[in-house]
């Protein structure tokens, strides 16, 4: 898959599944996240019936890492540009990736068919999230002795040298009135033991009650790691219910 350039930055993009199937865009969480959060879990399950579009957000995974420029509007603009050629899509986001998805839905409601939030919350105003409490990724948990001889800095450690966390805390979430005005269906999956549960439910409360459903699954903040099976069932069922019929034709 070729890298794609947006806003002058190089982005790592991958797709899974039949390109003619209904599109699903997956947005990973920040710091320890990358498309790998989805790639070996929820993405191949959804790819059975969908065209799954994955990308590494700026600064993450194999995408370019600018020193600054991590405010919500920039992250959402990246998503909008990268998915410009996809038809109306479901957008799935983990943690802050869900906030990016919501901002994208506010900016481009005609391009977002539905939204799935996986333990998403807005960290602005709150103390900096404990990085160690975020989704574990293979390699990130390497013992100190291993890390000491790493061929290069751990990606998460390197990312902390950017303005990312400061930008996230400085940027307000999407405007409450904008969120209340969303008309597409939204699924909020919440980790029963998530340390951010209050914040996650506070974000869900901003969404229109007649369009938003909240489901609690066993696990913590990294639901895709803690409850991969139940999460896959929940999201697959939701997309089947609210999306176009599998194998259906696009609207003219």
């Amino acid at each position, binding site marked *: 898959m070729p890298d794609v350039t947006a806003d002058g930055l190089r982005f790592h993009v*991958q797709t899974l599944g039949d390109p003619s199937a209904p599109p699903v865009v997956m947005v990973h969480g920040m710091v320890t996240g*990358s*498309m790998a959060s989805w790639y*070996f879990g929820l*993405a191949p399950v959804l790819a059975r019936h969908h065209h799954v579009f994955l990308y590494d957000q700026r600064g*993450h995974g194999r995408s370019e890492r600018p020193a600054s420029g991590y405010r919500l509007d920039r992250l959402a603009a990246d998503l909008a540009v990268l998915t410009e050629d996809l038809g109306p899509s479901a957008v799935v986001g983990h943690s802050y990736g869900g906030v990016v998805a919501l901002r994208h839905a506010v900016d481009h409601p005609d391009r977002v068919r539905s939204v799935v939030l996986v333990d998403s919350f807005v960290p602005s105003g709150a103390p900096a999230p404990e990085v160690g409490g975020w989704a574990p990724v293979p390699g990130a948990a390497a013992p100190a002795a291993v890390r000491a001889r790493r*061929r290069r800095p751990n990606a998460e450690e390197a990312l902390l040298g950017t303005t990312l966390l400061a930008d996230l805390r400085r940027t307000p979430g999407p405007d409450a009135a904008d969120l209340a005005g969303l008309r597409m269906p939204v699924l909020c999956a919440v980790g029963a033991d998530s340390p951010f549960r209050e914040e996650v439910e506070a974000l869900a409360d901003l969404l229109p009650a007649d369009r938003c459903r909240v489901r609690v699954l066993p696990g913590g903040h990294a639901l895709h790691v803690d409850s991969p099976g139940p999460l896959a069932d929940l999201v697959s069922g939701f997309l089947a219910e609210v999306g176009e019929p599998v194998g259906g034709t696009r609207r003219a």
Partner: protein
Amino acid sequence: MSGDTMQGATDAVTQEAILATVTGMIGEIIGEEYLDDLDVTMDSVITEDLELESIEFVALAEKLRDRYGERVEFVDWIAAMELEEIIGLTVGRVVTFVESCLT
């Protein structure tokens, strides 16, 4: 490169040939200069001994797909694993998995 007679890239199905192929892919991902310092064997743990991060597993999946096509469903195979199993994954398990898909 292995010493086997290779009739074509996709025909190499012996463990030695697949190990050489996978080792080459890992070298492309982490940089050949690092590969020189590493002894890649069937027992090498991919996350710890070779220090591959999760996003580099995606790169490995892409290379396997480019090389072997849909015969090797590496993504589905990894997706069915628990996190601990992925963290403990050895080169040998990948090699024998590829071999089982090709034979």
